[in-house]
Each structure stands twice: as structure tokens, then as C-alpha cells.
């Protein structure tokens, strides 16, 4: 081996042992890091409880898929690939970095298990890892600094641009890669020069290149470079470690925990407080999130974990239409507040009402709970539960816009947001032509296997009542023995829960649950995805719930329903995924399968479809809310459908139908485009 002196045996100026410095650096570095982490943990200790220690097996699986597998990353291809390279590089090089630190005071240290062939393979791998990480850093820096993708921009109201921090960190990573490679290359060049002995070096790696560049250097230079690059690496490494918890790169540390503790159940809303049952709610002093410390510790961990990648806001429909909401800044503003209120030294500040301090009321009401942000986040950060918790807090303080107070009061008094009479809930079945042919069973007096849960909009809205009649026709033709609850049915409360009026939701849930269980039905069918999600995920103890599209798909397969060839084969159809059918319940294929069973029907796909579907504008109480916005979500959606070459937008949700029908008018595309409910298309084609 070479006779270059490693840091463990080197003496500065011939007297001061470098090993002392190499020992002090990690001790100080780890000490400072531990102190910072302790301060960072302070708010989490004061936070609300959260149960995240269940389903360990599923959590480990998520860890493999989302954290280690980086499954979400390639959804944004270039940034995703760059991240995967840097992430994989970090994992590989972490072993090398730790051995390097120990090598500083223990000459010739080798990680246990890395002495034999494992070490050889590892060396080969880590040289490429370092090289690729450096290349990825350069591309990322050029991309961030010159091309500046729009999603990283920071609107003025949210503070200063974050580019400098991003490039600074890329510089740190690049320094680590270069110094590590120089450390090794200087040793190899020294050995080659002295003994003529050439060690195998993975070709085209940084080490390989540096070794060639250093072939003409003097022994003194190589020795100096060896020690210099060692300490450059050491100092940078510990600086980086302590810098991580100070900004968006905290995710390097927290991501592992954030993904492990992620929310496992889609479509559900967290309880008001973990460990407090519905019956005990009346005893709670306060409801929802009003101050920083009202968030759960996991939600605080979310704030720490945000990598500021902007994917959530890039997918957020509220952000797209210019509503005052950008999920990215829900996290960033809260993280900044945590840093400010829990400083690294000195006193902890008292927190104020969040909606007056860092958020605005409109910001929190702007969310349609479509879930696009959560679907996209590579770190599994949650937003819907936070929105609901913040709304619970606002409702408790009486901070509810006038536009929502009326429908909420109507829901309390009449069980529907329109304030219509309970006894008129089943009037949709009394339409002359329909009534002449069909009789609908009322489960209060008749018996049936299946309950058709209609919900408010389909029961009361003049246009949407068609969906109820179409659904009834489909069920009858498919031979399903069904009935309705009539005036015993109340609003499912899906949006009541999501708009933070917990106690009203509990009332509605209670009334519906009792009414449903009293009928003794074996299954529930609905054509409203919001009702579907409520009964399936929010309620408990009910018979199985199915959406009408599932029934149709099944009955087509079994032969109980058969469909005519397409009546309008010249038209181009596109299916719009309703959020609460698709993203929240993963029902993507059944409606498509049913559409494709219509012979000769031309169907195209929207670019944003399935789990990337774009919200139509929101359902339930969102129809009453008057947001500040530049355009409507529905209008953007109609334009997307037009770009996809479609002229019929088929959807499977009454709210989507309302929003898209309105949007077609607003977009001036009447006559060119039409919106159609899934049930109507099926009924038209029933044989």
C-alpha cells in the first residue's frame, strides 16, 4: 500500500495531530445536531395526540414503496429522476461518510462486513453513486437557477424566493461528492507515483477522473490535498447535518418518520381528538385547531417534512383558479411559525389564533378536499385533515361565512341544505312520466334487500332528480330489489363533516344510521360519490355500500344488463373522475368498463385523469360557498376536455354534473360540448 499519511496519523506542522481535530469535529457536530433536534422536538411534545402506531406491517410496506421506492417521484419525470439519483446516492454514500469520519482518528478503519468482496463491490458502487449525485446536482442547479420551473416561484404574499437556499444545498452536496472523491483519488495517485502499482478504479467516475488529473502532481501536493479534502468533507458533512433541521432540507431526516407515520385510510377524516369518542365530544373545552399547538404531532412533523417541491400546489385546483389557497404554503407558513415560536435558543413564544396569524379564513374555506395535493406529495404530507381541523376551530369560534350559515342552519332544521320540506324528499319519484311506469318502495313500510340512498342534491334539485330516476330504472332493470328511506333520509353530512360542523354531522349520521339499520337491508347503493364516501368511510356499522357504476359494471359482466350500440357514434366521450369516487375510493375502472361496453362509443382520456383528476369545483356545501377566484375550476376542466378532443363529458357525480354543466355555459361552449351523468348514458343505452 501507499505511504501517504492518512488523517489519523498526520500531524499539522509536524506537531499537532490531525486525529484530535478529526475526533473533535464529530463530537461537536453531533452535539450541536442533538441540541437542535431537541429544540425542534419541543413543539411536537406539546402537540395534540395522534395514533400512528397501528398496522405496523402496512406502515413498513409504505416505507418500502414511498420512501425507499420513491414511487411518487417520477410523476414529475426530470425532477423525480434527479431526486431518485440523489436519494439513492445518499443512501449508498452514508456508509462511506460514516467510515470516513471514523477513519480520521482510527487509521485504516473499515466498516464491519466491508473488508472482503463486499467492500470491493461497495467501492465500485459508491464511486458511481458520487459521480451521478454530482451530475444530478449540476443539472438540478442549472434547472433551479436558469430555467426556474414555475412551480418553485414564491408569490409575493408568501415571502421571499427560496432558490438561494436550494442552490446553496446543492453546492454543499456537490462539495461532499468532490471532497470524498479527491480524498481517495489523491491517495491512489500517490500510490501510483510511488510504487507504480495501479489499483482498479471504476472508469469514468469522479475518482477515476481526479486520479488522472493528479497524475503529474508532487508528493507534497497530494499529501496536502489528501488531508485538506478529508477535513473539507468532514466539516461540510457536519455543517450539513446541523443545517438540515433549519429549513426545507429537514426532510432528509424526517421523511423516513413522516412516511412511516402517514395516514393509511383514504376517504376518512380524523376524529376531533384522538382518544375522544363521539359521545365524549360534548366534554371537550375547545374544538379543532385554533392555535399551533392544537395540531397533532404528526401534522407538525408534516410541516417539518415539506421539501417545498410545489407539486401539491401545482395539482391544487383551488390554486389553479386563483383562490387564496396554495397547499405548499399551508405547510411552509406553519413551519416558519414553528421555527419562529420555538427558536433554537431562548423563550418559546405564545401562539395566536392561526387564522389571524398566518392563515386567512378564505384560505381555509377554499379547499374542496379533492385530495390532489395528498395524492401527489412524495413525502405523504396530509392536508385534508388539517383543513377540517382548522374549519372545526373556525366553526367553534363562530367564524363561518354568511353564505354557508344558511345551508348549515337548513341542514340542522330540515336535514338538507336547501331548507326544503322533509316530506318532499321523495318527490323525484312523483314525476308524471316516471310515476306512470315505476313505483318506488318506501322502506319505512315496505321490505327490500337494497337501499338506494339518494342524498339531498339528487332528492331536491330539479335537474339532478333525473339521476335518481335513472338510477331507479337501472336498478329495476338489473333486477335489484330496492327501496328508499323517503323523509327518513337526511343529508349524508359528508360536507358538513368536512366543513367542520362536527356536532351537526354527528346528528345527521346518527339519524341516518338508525333509519338504515331499521330497514334491515343487506346492501346500500348510491349514485352520489359524496354519499358513497360518507356511508362507506365516515359512518360505521352499515351494510356494504356500492356506487351505481359498480352495480352496472357487475351486471353487464353477469349479463343481467345489456347495452345497445352507441346511439351517437359520431360523438367523442370522455370520463371525468369524481374525486370521491376516484382518488378517495380508487374506483377508476368500473365506470370506464361500463362505458366501453357500449359498442361503437368513442372514448378518449383526459390528460389529468384517474388519481390526477382535476376537481370540478366541489360538492355539497361548496356549492354555496362564494370564493374569491379568477375563474371556475369547472371551466378549466371543460377546456381540458375540449383539448382532449371530447364533446361529451360523462361524470358519475351529481355535483360534477352541476359544476360542469354550468362551466360549459360560462366557457361559452354550449352546443359544442355537453355534460352527461353516467346513469343517463347507461339508461339511454339499455336494451
Amino acid at each position: 500500500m501507499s505511504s501517504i499519511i492518512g488523517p489519523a496519523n498526520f500531524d499539522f506542522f509536524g506537531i499537532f495531530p490531525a486525529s484530535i481535530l478529526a475526533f473533535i469535529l464529530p463530537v461537536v457536530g453531533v452535539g450541536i445536531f442533538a441540541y437542535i433536534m431537541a429544540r425542534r422536538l419541543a413543539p411536537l411534545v406539546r402537540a395534540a395526540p395522534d395514533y400512528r402506531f397501528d398496522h405496523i406491517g402496512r406502515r413498513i410496506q409504505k416505507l418500502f414503496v414511498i420512501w425507499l421506492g420513491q414511487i411518487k417521484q417520477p410523476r414529475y419525470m426530470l425532477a423525480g429522476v434527479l431526486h431518485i439519483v440523489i436519494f439513492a446516492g445518499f443512501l449508498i454514500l452514508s456508509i462511506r461518510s460514516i467510515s470516513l469520519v471514523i477513519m480520521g482518528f482510527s487509521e485504516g478503519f473499515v466498516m464491519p462486513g466491508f473488508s472482503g468482496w463486499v467492500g470491493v463491490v461497495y467501492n465500485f458502487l459508491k464511486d458511481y453513486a458520487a459521480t451521478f449525485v454530482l451530475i444530478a446536482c449540476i443539472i438540478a442547479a442549472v434547472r433551479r437557477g436558469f430555467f426556474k420551473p414555475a412551480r418553485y416561484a414564491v408569490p409575493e404574499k408568501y415571502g421571499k424566493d427560496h432558490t438561494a437556499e436550494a442552490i446553496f444545498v446543492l453546492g454543499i452536496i456537490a462539495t461532499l461528492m468532490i471532497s470524498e472523491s479527491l480524498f481517495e483519488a489523491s491517495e491512489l495517485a500517490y500510490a501510483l507515483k510511488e510504487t507504480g502499482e495501479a489499483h482498479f478504479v471504476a472508469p469514468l467516475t469522479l475518482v477515476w477522473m481526479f486520479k488522472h488529473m493528479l497524475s503529474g502532481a508532487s508528493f507534497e501536493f497530494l499529501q496536502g490535498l489528501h488531508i485538506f479534502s478529508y477535513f473539507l468533507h468532514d466539516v461540510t458533512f457536519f455543517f450539513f447535518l446541523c443545517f438540515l433541521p433549519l429549513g426545507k432540507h429537514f426532510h432528509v431526516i424526517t421523511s423516513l418518520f413522516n412516511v412511516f407515520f402517514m395516514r393509511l385510510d383514504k376517504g376518512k377524516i380524523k376524529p376531533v381528538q384522538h382518544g375522544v369518542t363521539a359521545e365524549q365530544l360534548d366534554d371537550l373545552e375547545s374544538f379543532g385547531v385554533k392555535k399551533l399547538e392544537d395540531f397533532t404531532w404528526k401534522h407538525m412533523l408534516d410541516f417539518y417534512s415539506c421539501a417545498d417541491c410545489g407539486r401539491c400546489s401545482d395539482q391544487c385546483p383551488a390554486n389553479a383558479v386563483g383562490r387564496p389557497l396554495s397547499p405548499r404554503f399551508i405547510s411552509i407558513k406553519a413551519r416558519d411559525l414553528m421555527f419562529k415560536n420555538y427558536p433554537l435558543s431562548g423563550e418559546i413564544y405564545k401562539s395566536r389564533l392561526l387564522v389571524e396569524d398566518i392563515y386567512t379564513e378564505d384560505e381555509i374555506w377554499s379547499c374542496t378536499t379533492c385530495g390532489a395535493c395528498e395524492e401527489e406529495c412524495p413525502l405523504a404530507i396530509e392536508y385534508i385533515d388539517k383543513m377540517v381541523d382548522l374549519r372545526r376551530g373556525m366553526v367553534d369560534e363562530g367564524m363561518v361565512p354568511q353564505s354557508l350559515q344558511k345551508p348549515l342552519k337548513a341542514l340542522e332544521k330540515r336535514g338538507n341544505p336547501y331548507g326544503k320540506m322533509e316530506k318532499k324528499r321523495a318527490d323525484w319519484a312523483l314525476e308524471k312520466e316516471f310515476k306512470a311506469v315505476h313505483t318506488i318502495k318506501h322502506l319505512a313500510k315496505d321490505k327490500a334487500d337494497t337501499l338506494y340512498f339518494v342524498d339531498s342534491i339528487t332528492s331536491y334539485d330539479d335537474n339532478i332528480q333525473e339521476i335518481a330516476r335513472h338510477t331507479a330504472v337501472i336498478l329495476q332493470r338489473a333486477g335489484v330489489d330496492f327501496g328508499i328511506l323517503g323523509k327518513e333520509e337526511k343529508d349524508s353530512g359528508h360536507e358538513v363533516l368536512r366543513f367542520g360542523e362536527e356536532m351537526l354531522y354527528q346528528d345527521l349520521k346518527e339519524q341516518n344510521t338508525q333509519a338504515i339499520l331499521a330497514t334491515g337491508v343487506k346492501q346500500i347503493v348510491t349514485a352520489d360519490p359524496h354519499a358513497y364516501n360518507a356511508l362507506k368511510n365516515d359512518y360505521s356499522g352499515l351494510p356494504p355500500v356500492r356506487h351505481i357504476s359498480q352495480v352496472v359494471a357487475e351486471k353487464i359482466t353477469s349479463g343481467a344488463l345489456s347495452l345497445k350500440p352507441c346511439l351517437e357514434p359520431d360523438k367523442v366521450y370522455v370520463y371525468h373522475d369524481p374525486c370521491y369516487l376516484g382518488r378517495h375510493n380508487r374506483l377508476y375502472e368500473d365506470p370506464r368498463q361500463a362505458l366501453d361496453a357500449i359498442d361503437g362509443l368513442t372514448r378518449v382520456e383526459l390528460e389529468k385523469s384517474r388519481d390526477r383528476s382535476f376537481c370540478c369545483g366541489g360538492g355539497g356545501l361548496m356549492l354555496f360557498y362564494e370564493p374569491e377566484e379568477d375563474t371556475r375550476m369547472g371551466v378549466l376542466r371543460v377546456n381540458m376536455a375540449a383539448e382532449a378532443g371530447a364533446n361529451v363529458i360523462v361524470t358519475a357525480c351529481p355535483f360534477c354534473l352541476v359544476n360542469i354543466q354550468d362551466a360549459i355555459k360560462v366557457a361559452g361552449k354550449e352546443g359544442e360540448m355537453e355534460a352527461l351523468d353516467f346513469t343517463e348514458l347507461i339508461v339511454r343505452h339499455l336494451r
Partner: protein
Amino acid sequence: MEILVCVKRVPDTAENEFELNSAGNDLDRDDLVYSVNEWDNYAVEEAIQIVDNAGGSVTVVTVGDDESEEVLRREMAMGANNGVLLSDEGFEGSDGKGIAAILKAEIEKGKYDLILTGAQADEGAGQVGGMLAAMLDYPYASLVNKIEVVDDAVIKVGREIEGGNQEMNEIQLPCVLSIQTGINEPRYVGIRGIRKVASVDIPVKGAGDLGLDAATVGDAGAKTRRVDYFVPDLGEGAEMLEGSTDEIIEKLIEKLKAKGGL
């Protein structure tokens, strides 16, 4: 500042479809839902905001039956400190003057700096506030859409004038004001809020407690009486369009086109 707000339980216009009863002299009240009179809700919100800034307490009072207690609780859930229910069989059938007389009796038992009423309630008469002020011999401002507290003795009140102009007046305390909607944005009262005040004691006072002569209130004292209640007959040139919303819109557009309106 001690503030009293007079409120009333009324059929909720937003949540009801009104039909006449078979006798044809009143609404069919069997299937109605009730809530606090909308104007009164604004008055209570204004009172709470004044007390938040200037200190004091808010008391809500209503004349009605047992069921009227629900609106007092709702207003207390909003933030009113006390509630008083004025209830007596002898109060039934009171006209506006009778109601004002009952309220006056209660007001004289306390010491209030400011008395608020809604500008009007379900019957649209808008009379109680003015009569109450006259009976108490207090200054009165109607249709108030802005209140600024100057000091313990004087406040400024605003009123919107035809055409959107605004006037401000100084008025000496104690006084009576009738409050217009739009003066503020009343806070939301959730079910949770109402449950929190569900067990708070609300005193009930009858004619005897108030020292009222039964002959001056209720049916006995009423000098105005409703004799009829009806939906006006369609006049010349008026026509009801029938059908679904779409059909109605279509017919309307046709008619507008035919008459050159479009």
C-alpha cells in the same frame, strides 16, 4: 355598557314553504320551522361586539311561549350573557303596543344603557322599537346600520339614506335603537354552542312578576286586530308560469322575446 336586546321567535322564511291554513286567516303553522328573527340576530351580534370592546353585558329578552326559550338559548350561544323569557297566558294576542308595554315593564326592573330591537320581524310592522322608546321616554333611532361608542353618555349611530348615502347622528344614552341587517356579519352558532348553554337557567317572568295590569296587555288590551290574511289575487297583466325550472325559464325567455325585451 349594559345592553338589552329584544328578540322574537319567527317562522324561518328560508326553510319554509308558506301555505295558508284551511280557515284562511293565518299560515298553516303545523309544518313550519322557527328561528330567531333575522334582524334581531344582527342586533345581538352588534351588542356582543360593543361589549367586547367597551365592557358590560348583553341580556336578551323575548315575549313568547315556552318554545321561545330556544331562540334565547341560540342568542346566548352566540355570546349574550343573560336571557329573560316573558311568558304569561295573559300576554297572548298582544298587539304591538301590548308587546312594547310588556318589554317596558321588564326594562324598568333593570338598568340598561342601550336597548336594541330588530328593525322589523315577521309581521313587517316595525312598530315595537318606536313605541317602546316613547313609553320609556328614551331617545330613539330606527334602521341603524352603524354604531360607534363615544363615551358612557353618548354614542353615534348611522343610517343609510335613499340612494346609498350615509348619515351619522349623536344620540344620548340610555336610548332605543332598531337595527338594520348588514350592520355586521353575525357569527355562526353551531349545535355545540347551543348545547353548551342548554342547562343555563333562564328566568321566566309573568304579568304578576312585572306588575302588569292584565287588562293593558294580551287580547284584552289589544286595540289592533288582524282580520284577514291572504295571498293577493292575480292582478291584470300578471301571469304565473308553471312547470319545471327549465320550462319556466324557457317560457320566460319566449315572452321577453315576444315583447321585445330581449
